[in-house]
């Protein structure tokens, strides 16, 4: 079973994260409040449109003039074509002189002459129906449009002309002279395009009066194509449309009113949202300051402990060195007391080392230095240091080693500290019992096992013993001293070395196993 030590995350970054989240939340609340409280009111003002109406009338007059001109042209050409049925080339040339003529058809009043058709330009696809007055058609079936002979030949002895502009039929113009009629099929779109071209030029001059008003106004054809415009036309539908209607198409002068958008806010909603946002931001800042202050105090405490522990190291060195100096001159009667002083000095050294390691760990500065060393020898050195103390407490320790005594690359100080912390527990808890320290070296790993036959660790405590400052309660009452840092530090050092420290289930007593892989160090 393995256990992991619990560590609080470094407090300052945590505080910053919390502050950041609270501020983002406050911003979201404020933005949401502003958007909910926002009210838009549109005001529309009608414009003076005299210029637009004048333009409409002028354009209508212009369209009529164009129509009349076109009528006259068709009439003249029709009269000419009545004569030239036999001269198809002459007829074609005459028809091509008029914009929009697609086909010329000759029809006859009670005559044996067949109806004749002449296509001008490219044939339309699908083919335009041929005008006819024959109810029964001879020859190949073709699309045809039946005309009323009574209308065309109403004045069969004289001359007549007119438009045939009926729904479902192509636009046609007829000219009848003495029982012969010429029907011209007109392409309405072609005439419209020609008129568009004319209006574009015409509007250059005529649109100026509207232009001076600043718009938005525009002149468009029936397909919503803009011929000219002023101002930026809005996307919405025009407020006024003035049409210009002709046989060949419809144009429109479109105009929009003046619009302005007023933005206002619903004050109670806005005030409520902003107050809530301020409250959240204030709470965030307050909590962050509090946390920062607490973290600072904790940091100062750790730094203080660190400094004091450093200062303790020099006098500790002096004590240890001088104990070694006088060792040889201690009278036999005092040897036991001398040993006691030495053990206590060793204990104090370990305590200082543990406190320093813990404070470095808390500050996130604990780093290890791996170097070649003899791990089994390091463990033996620590065992030798503990031997007198264990003997005094009636603990019989067995030291064994398996495998070669070869070098390994690891942090010797960390290994020594782990060994000392595990043996320190044996010394405290396994009074009068047997204990064993075993090291095993294989090609790829190193394992240290420290076991004793003492009271062991209850199942409920197994997970918590690796937590810093945790101590088993009844043992405090039993008079066992300690800081509760030893196992936590040992676990942390083991993990930093890339290894594990586990409490191995055993029938009697406690058994800890430290295992570290040694990669490519065989």
């Amino acid at each position, binding site marked *: 079973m393995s256990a992991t030590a619990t560590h609080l995350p470094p407090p300052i970054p945590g505080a910053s994260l919390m502050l950041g989240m609270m501020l983002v939340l406050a911003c979201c609340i404020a933005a949401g409040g502003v958007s909910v409280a926002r009210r838009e009111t549109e005001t529309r003002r009608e414009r003076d449109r005299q210029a637009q109406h004048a333009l409409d009338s002028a354009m209508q007059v212009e369209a009529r003039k164009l129509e009349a001109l076109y009528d006259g042209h068709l009439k003249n050409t029709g009269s000419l074509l009545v004569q030239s049925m036999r001269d198809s080339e002459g007829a074609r040339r005459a028809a091509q002189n008029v914009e929009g003529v697609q086909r010329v058809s000759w029809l006859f009043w009670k005559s044996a002459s067949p109806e004749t058709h002449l296509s001008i330009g490219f044939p339309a696809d699908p083919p335009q129906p041929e005008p006819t007055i024959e109810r029964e058609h001879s020859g190949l079936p073709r699309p045809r449009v039946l005309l009323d002979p009574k209308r065309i030949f109403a004045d069969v002895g004289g001359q007549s002309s007119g438009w045939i502009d009926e729904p479902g039929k192509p636009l046609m113009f007829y000219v009848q002279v003495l029982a012969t009629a010429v029907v011209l099929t007109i392409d309405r779109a072609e005439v419209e395009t020609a008129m568009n071209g004319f209006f574009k030029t015409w509007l250059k001059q005529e649109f100026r009066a509207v232009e001076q008003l600043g718009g938005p106004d525009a002149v468009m054809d029936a397909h919503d194509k803009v011929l000219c415009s002023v101002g930026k036309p809005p996307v919405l539908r025009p407020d006024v449309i003035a049409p210009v209607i002709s046989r060949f198409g419809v144009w429109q002068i479109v105009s929009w009113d003046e619009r302005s958008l007023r933005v206002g806010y619903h004050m109670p909603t806005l005030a409520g949202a902003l107050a809530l946002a301020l409250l959240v931001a204030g709470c965030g800042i307050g909590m962050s300051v509090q946390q920062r202050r607490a973290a600072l105090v904790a940091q100062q405490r750790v730094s203080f402990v660190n400094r004091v522990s450093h200062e303790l190291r020099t006098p*500790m060195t*002096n004590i240890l060195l001088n104990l070694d100096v006088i060792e040889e001159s201690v009278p036999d009667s005092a040897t036991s007391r001398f040993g006691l002083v030495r053990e206590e000095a060793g204990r104090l050294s370990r305590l200082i080392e543990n406190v320093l390691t813990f404070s470095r760990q808390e500050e996130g500065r604990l780093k290890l230095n791996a170097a070649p060393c003899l791990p089994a020898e390091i463990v033996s050195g620590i065992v030798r240091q503990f031997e007198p103390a264990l003997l005094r407490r009636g603990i019989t320790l067995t030291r064994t080693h398996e495998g070669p005594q070869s070098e390994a690359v690891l942090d010797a*100080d960390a290994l020594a500290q782990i060994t000392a912390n595990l043996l320190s527990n044996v010394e405290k808890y396994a009074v009068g019992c047997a204990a064993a320290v075993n090291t095993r070296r294989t090609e790829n790993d190193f394992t240290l096992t420290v076991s004793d036959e003492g009271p062991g660790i209850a199942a409920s405590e197994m997970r918590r013993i690796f937590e810093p400052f945790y101590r088993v309660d009844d043992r405090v009452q039993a008079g066992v001293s300690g800081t509760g840092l030893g196992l936590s530090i040992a676990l942390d050092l083991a993990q930093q070395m890339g290894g594990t420290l586990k409490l191995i289930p055993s029938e009697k007593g406690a058994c800890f196993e430290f295992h570290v892989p040694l990669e490519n160090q065989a």
Partner: protein
Amino acid sequence: MTILLADDDPVTLESLAACLQPEGFHTLLARDGEEALRLWQKHRPDLLCLDIMMPGVDGYEVCRRVRATDAGVPILFLSAKSEEIDVVVGLRLGADDFLRKPFGKHELIARIGSALRRTQVAQSPASSFQLGPLRVFPAELRAQRDADSMDLTPREVAILKLLHERAGQVLSRDTLLDVCWGLEYMPESRTLDQHIAKLRKKIERESDEIIETVRGVGYRWRGQG
């Protein structure tokens, strides 16, 4: 074997000297960096033990200046500072080892021995002599018995060397004290016995006596065989 010790704590300085002198090391004591540099210039010791935090010129600076003229002399840092960065700086400046306070005499002597050994091995092939099953390397303060290597102090090396030079002869306590401790020292007779006892513990194994006690006279090594 001369060792220069530099530490601004007078008690530490005196304690270090008190540990090393009985083991046969000569010591030079400096209270600050400038004094350390002066003593080094004058005496050219075999090894330097430097504290890092000293007034004026600190241990790092002493190390830097010594290394500028002598790349070979072993340098050990003895410091209460033990952060990884301190160790790294020290080793980058050319120190051979970093001994973290608190430490005891045995650890200090072992580290001094291993630092000397590294430089000795690098500088010259080791000269050695055989004492029964033991091969002694005086310059490296080390003896080898089969696969085991053991650290020795200069005093222990001196005792083994004298026993080897006078193989078969019984050496009186006075001779041993005069030769190995020097005439200016007046150690107690007990000191010699303690040294011999410690030495035996290091080099001898069960039922295998190298140093023989000649009751009432002194000690002897019987020579080969």
